[in-house]
């Protein structure tokens, strides 16, 4: 099968001349070619959401449900991109603080879905949280702590320093 050269910007780094084939999905290339293993492969049918990444608009999309060739020249953000300055993103800090992680398998997809929601609505309503998170499944820690983390992400510094007794 023919190979193609594409360019893809992931987390601000541009990968020129990525060698991909027609039948690879965006997920195949993020994990296999680029080697960023944070984004997980789950159901590959669009039902679990663990492969979620954000597109250039900051919207959540499923990287397993789209040809990589659709994304030639475009920019995406994966879970690795949230902490690329070395400091965790507010939503990641909130997940740590509220214990919204258990086995961690779905966490990248859950966090990238939450990040997309917070990009559009920094202080989302319950309804907005429910709608944005309906496409990702966590089967161990449950969704209550995840929602708590999302609700408080905008003021996480304050919550953390209060808890530390500052």
């Amino acid at each position, binding site marked *: *099968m023919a190979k193609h050269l594409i360019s893809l910007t992931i987390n601000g780094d541009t990968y020129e001349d990525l060698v991909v084939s*027609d*039948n690879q*999905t965006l997920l195949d290339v993020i994990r296999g070619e680029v080697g960023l293993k944070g984004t997980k492969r789950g159901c590959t049918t669009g039902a679990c959401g663990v492969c979620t990444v954000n597109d250039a608009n900051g919207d959540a999309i499923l990287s397993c*449900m789209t*040809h990589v*060739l659709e994304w030639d020249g475009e920019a995406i953000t994966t879970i690795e991109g949230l902490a690329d300055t070395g400091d965790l993103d507010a939503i990641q800090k909130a997940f740590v603080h509220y214990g919204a992680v258990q086995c961690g398998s779905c966490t990248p997809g859950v966090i990238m879905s939450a990040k997309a929601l917070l990009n559009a609505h920094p202080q989302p309503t319950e309804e907005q949280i429910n709608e944005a998170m309906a*496409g990702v499944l966590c089967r161990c820690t449950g969704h209550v702590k995840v929602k708590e983390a999302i609700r408080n992400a905008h003021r996480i510094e304050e919550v953390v320093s209060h808890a530390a007794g500052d």
Partner: protein
Amino acid sequence: MLLPDHQYLCADSLQACLKTLRESGERTHVVAGGTDVIFNMRLRLFQPDIALSIRRVAEIQQVEELPDGSLRIGAGCRLVDLAENPVINERYPAFADSIRAVASTHIRNIATLGGNICLKTRCWYTNNSEQWRQGVKECFKTDGDLCHVIKSSSLCHAINNADTPLPLIVLGAVLTLQREGGSRDVPIAEFYQKDGMDHTVLEADELVTHVTLPPCADRTVFLKIAARKGMDFSQAAIAGRASGTGSQAGEVRLVLGSISMAPIVLHEPARLIAEQGITDAAIEQAEEKVRAELGELTSLYARAGYKAHLAKILVRRALKALREM
């Protein structure tokens, strides 16, 4: 699992897309958002030689108001954009509700209206992995000559699970199908066929390019029942429309989805209500007339008997909702 081997082509204009479809339509599968196509390709249910992406075809991504008051929507518009479109929300609220009912935010961020209209029919037997299917005899969908769901049937009974076509049918929407050098308009009610294999009248060299909605001043409603609100295909869904106000209704339309190979337009219940008005007594009578119009029922996401029950319940809820509007 990797997708099967195929060639990926990206059409950068409508003309280029229609040219590819003319030259190799039989061997090609159009990919709009891809959320249904890629899923089916991974299951090896579609193994096209060419996957033709129309994501960059700008001509089919506009929403235009026409001089006669109609709204013309490009089939390539993403569901997320249509769900937020103020004109659609104001003039066609049931249609807007049906868009928001499709899958999850993640899917709607990339899936298109045309894709939902052309959504392939699904069935408990074929929508499984290739290895799983090897354990059962080939059916119509896998080049065999039987239907596992209804063994005596000469047709495939896979179910049409699309949500957006239901309000489009009650609204009297018209689809524009284009091929190189030609175009035809098909009322969406005539677009679907009662055959799980050949479920639309779309030809291999054609593309659904636009959906035109005539003005509508009537009350409309869309209701969906699914296992989970956020993600699942419907167990049953309904769109309804009634002229007049309160219990008065001169004209009534009811369309059920996710029950059969094509959306079901309910004639007798609608006629009864139009005659008697939306009264409790008429609703009860209308409910009793529903089962006879459903035909043979099969199980997908809910058992057949339960689907018959849901159909009845949805007719009742839709009529009561219309009366309150």
